[in-house]
């Protein structure tokens, strides 16, 4: 079984083994046969009239004496299928082709119908199980002691909630029967899932679910998509016949997993190509997570019970994956992870027993820290499995899958927001995103408009495919117009001004800042360090690098902070930008290309993170970081002589503006002097409104013109 499937199903199988055996043999079901017999008898009696003719047809010479060859072949198929079916663990999907062949010869054998139904229940096409299970029951109500349970599963997986509940209730063992407690618990859980499904389906999520298209999907399984915050890049896992090494896995017969990458071109995804070594190897290589800027990737490797690795994008090449270390990777199974937007924390999934609330749980850990990973607690983690964690670039909205909460079956995708020190009650993303089957490994764009996950659907290119979910938001109410003839003596009607209140639109609260860093002179892309600074706290929150090949960078700035963005590279003057993103600010995407200038005489740099009180020349404390950078620059370059200049927009009196700008420049110089910079290296000037860098006709232009600058006089 491939690792991803194993990640998903290992637990499920273990659990079912402890309650219902995954194989059709009646081991451990003596209680059930005792329970079932009378009920089944009653049922078959009740069903006698319409189904009087339905009777299981045996694969025997009595019935098929006229086609001995066909019979022989069918029996051979059944035997071959049984070998897979009865293997430990059973290989349901491999048994299916043989069974279906035999089914063609004789479609009316209860046992074979049951086995096909059971195989489908344990395959990627679970919903196909139902018709076979129903037929098996019709042909022989007593064909299997688990009949009602299996019918319940088949109905459940076809979202026939009420009928599934009825079958689950029939499967309920009497109190005191062997293993009754565990079985009752499991059935009650399934019934609760159906009830959740019933409720959720009544209010479907307003989404479009579209196949991600031929650029991404193939006739082979494609799954586990991860995206950059701006949806410009998608990476995913696929098991194609051109797999690195070209080998197939002996157990499943499928090709080994490889990681593929595609870039957006317009509204489509371009043709995906496999990553090269060292990321893709002969074995399984699967995508787990991608940093918002697409420069850092998390992957899953089968070592040590399943571990998480990470690698960096250097230019166009991914580095050799490195393990995330013992604080994250235990001997148990680590299967999914996501970076916080500042890249400092990792949310990950592990089934390590210590501190677990049951099965797989989600943990948080500071990557460069020393502390132990922390379980996210009972608000998120349940006694059932949690999987597929994804932290949104806003840094507070987490998407994850869980078998608990109000799942409608298997894993469902949930959303929870970290606010006021705690996680909000997880919200089921609802039908039709979630289904009775497993829905896992969901990621969402920074804008919140598009999500991606994999699913098996009828419109697919084959096997599992990657789907894009478009979130439409709450229903948009239509607007009506009416009018009335309000004056008895007038003919003209008066239009009513009934306006439906606009619905609040919830957009994500994050600003995506992206662009290309270049050398100002050569215009060539430049690799540079990008520091994200909290101006208020004078603290570097996160550091990123622009891509060495493309110069591209992307930082996600959750709302609620006055950000300084500092771009630096050795041999260049630093460049600073200011983004004040107030709390509650809705999603926006800002493209800002940055040209770094070499340290040369005459070069001017705007100090965007120096702030003054309005109409005054007192430095605000948020300016500290920028001033310290300036001090550092002067200390690093002892021969550097600079002029600090103040500039204003054209609002107000020219003489006043000149004086104000000069005072402000002087305050900066004074500050530098108090920090030990020799006075002779610094001059100041106030240019008032005489040197605009943008037209004063717009608000933005005026803002650009109000600035503090430094100019290199000597180096």
């Amino acid at each position, binding site marked *: 079984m491939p690792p991803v499937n194993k990640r998903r199903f290992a637990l499920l199988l273990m659990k079912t083994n402890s309650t219902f055996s995954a194989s059709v043999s009646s081991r451990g079901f003596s209680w059930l046969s005792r329970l079932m017999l009378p009920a089944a008898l009653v049922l078959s009696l009740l069903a006698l009239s319409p189904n009087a003719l339905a009777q299981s047809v045996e694969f025997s010479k009595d019935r098929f004496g006229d086609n001995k060859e066909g019979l022989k072949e069918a029996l051979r198929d059944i035997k071959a299928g049984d070998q897979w079916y009865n293997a430990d663990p059973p290989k349901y999907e491999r048994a299916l082709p043989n069974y279906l062949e035999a089914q063609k010869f004789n479609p009316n054998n209860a046992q074979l119908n049951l086995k096909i139904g059971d195989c489908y229940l344990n395959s990627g096409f679970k919903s196909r199980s139902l018709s076979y299970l129903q037929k098996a029951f019709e042909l022989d109500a007593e064909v299997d002691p688990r009949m009602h349970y299996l019918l319940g599963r088949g109905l459940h997986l076809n979202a026939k909630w009420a009928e599934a509940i009825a079958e689950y209730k029939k499967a309920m063992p009497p109190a005191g029967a062997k293993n009754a407690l565990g079985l009752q618990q499991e059935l009650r859980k399934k019934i609760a899932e159906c009830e959740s499904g019933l409720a959720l389906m009544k209010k479907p999520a307003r989404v479009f679910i579209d196949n991600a298209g031929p650029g991404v999907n193939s006739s082979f399984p494609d799954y586990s998509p991860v995206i950059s915050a701006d949806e410009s890049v998608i990476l995913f896992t696929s098991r194609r016949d051109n797999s690195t090494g070209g080998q197939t896995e002996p157990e499943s017969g499928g090709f080994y997993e490889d990681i593929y990458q595609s870039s957006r071109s317009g509204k489509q995804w371009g043709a995906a190509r496999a990553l090269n070594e060292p990321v893709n190897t002969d074995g399984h290589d699967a995508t787990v997570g991608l940093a918002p800027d697409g420069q850092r990737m998390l992957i899953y490797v089968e070592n040590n019970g399943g571990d998480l690795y990470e690698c960096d994008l250097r230019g166009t090449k991914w580095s050799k994956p490195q393990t995330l270390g013992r604080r994250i990777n235990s001997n148990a199974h680590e299967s999914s992870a996501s970076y916080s937007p500042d890249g400092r924390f990792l949310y990950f999934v592990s089934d390590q027993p210590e501190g677990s609330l049951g099965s797989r749980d989600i943990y948080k850990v500071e990557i460069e820290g020393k502390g132990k990973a922390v379980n996210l607690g009972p608000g998120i983690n349940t006694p059932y499995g949690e999987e597929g964690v994804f932290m949104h670039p806003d840094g507070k909205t987490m998407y994850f899958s869980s078998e608990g909460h109000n799942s409608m079956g298997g894993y469902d995708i949930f959303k929870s927001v970290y606010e006021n020190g705690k996680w909000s009650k997880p919200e089921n993303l609802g039908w039709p995103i979630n289904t009775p089957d497993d829905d896992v490994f969901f990621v969402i764009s920074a804008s919140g408009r598009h999500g991606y996950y994999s699913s098996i659907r009828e419109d697919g290119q084959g096997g599992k495919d990657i789907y894009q979910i478009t979130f439409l938001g709450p229903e948009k109410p239509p*607007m009506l117009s009416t009018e*009335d003839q309000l004056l008895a003596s007038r003919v003209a009607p008066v239009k009513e001004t*009934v306006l439906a209140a606009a619905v609040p639109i919830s*957009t994500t609260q994050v600003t995506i800042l992206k662009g290309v860093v270049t050398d100002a002179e050569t215009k060539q892309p430049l690799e540079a360090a990008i520091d994200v600074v909290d101006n208020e706290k004078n603290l570097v929150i996160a550091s990123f690098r622009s891509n060495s090949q493309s110069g591209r960078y992307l930082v996600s700035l959750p709302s609620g902070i006055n950000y300084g963005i500092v771009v630096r590279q050795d041999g260049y003057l630093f460049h600073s930008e200011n983004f004040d993103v107030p709390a509650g600010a809705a999603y926006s995407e800002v493209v800002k290309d940055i040209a770094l200038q070499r340290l040369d005489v005459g070069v001017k740099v705007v100090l965007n993170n120096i702030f003054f009180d309005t109409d005054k020349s007192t430095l605000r404390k948020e300016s500290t970081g920028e001033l310290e950078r300036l001090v550092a620059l002067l200390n690093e370059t002892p021969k550097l002589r600079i002029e600090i200049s103040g500039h204003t927009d054209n609002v107000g009196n020219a003489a006043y503006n000149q004086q104000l700008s000069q005072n402000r420049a002087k305050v900066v110089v004074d500050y530098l002097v108090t920090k030990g910079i020799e006075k002779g290296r610094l001059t100041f000037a106030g240019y008032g409104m005489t040197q605009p860098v943008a037209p004063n006709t717009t608000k933005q232009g005026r803002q650009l013109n109000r600035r503090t600058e430094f100019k290199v006089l000597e180096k």
Partner: protein
Amino acid sequence: MITRFTALLLVAGAGWLAATPAQAQVDTVRASTLPPAQLAEKYYNSGVAKFADKSYRSAIQEFDKALAAKPDFAKAYYNRATTRYELKEYEQAVQDYDQAIKLEPNGFTSYFGRGQARQALNQPDAAEQDYTKAAEAKPDYAPSWYYRGDLRFEKGDFKAALADFTAAVKADPNYAYAYHDRASTQRQMGNFAAAVQDYDQALKLQPELLSALLNRASAKRRLGDLKGALADYSAYLAKRTDNAVAYNNRGSARFEAGNYKGAVEDFSQAISLNPEYAFAFNNRAAAYLKLENYKQAAEDASRAIKLNGSYAEAYLNRGHAREMLRDADGACQDWRKAADLGLESGTAYANASCE
């Protein structure tokens, strides 16, 4: 339903018919008491008789002769003015009223009549002044208040309109139109319960005043009494089936009640009565949206837009339909257009869903 003011020929001694909205007066002089020499009066009375026969042209000729015989014959000016009003010769009517007022500055009838003529000439401010004079001269003459109330209503000065209608029903407690229009004023001021009460009163006084039924329905809708509203609409439509506005309104009430199929039927009926009725197309688009028939919704909204190129609501609704039809670009265009035309929600939708 809408009764235009009718000029009523009054033989001396006749009074107002209270229930009619307004009566201009055409004075007469008792013929039996005429001295033989009173030629002007004779012509005058002949003119009055012709007026009563609706032979307005002939009536004018008689009043002309009367005025030729007696140039200061104020009543003849007044009656000629009233006759000209009937002939829709409003400017000349105003001139004659001017003469009548000049000769008899204290009479209220000429002011009222001139107010009517000026209103017909679309000079609401001048008309309002005339009604004010008439009301001052004779406060118990209800129509002066009523007509001034309507003008003030149309100006959007609902408070003043309310006072006028109240004065009208005080002067004439059986004045159904005044109750009706006071109800409408209450409604515009957001006093829906008071509006329903006044419409009730108007209907009590004049059951055939069907617009009261229609308007009461709308007021009930605003009160959240959908059931009552639907009953009123249906009562109206049982009596009159030729009013597209009524179908459009019942359709909207049905929409509010969640009966989208019924709403579509009503809007379709409105459209068949008035194929140029943009509101009905827009509203049917809204109902189709709810029925998830997005193609029809988009088509109807387009029809509404074709009829009225600056119909913000129709753009908004078509945007919704196009979104569901997977025409994201078209939807965004429509929402932005709706926003340009003044619907703020258009901006919100565009911000949330458009690139």
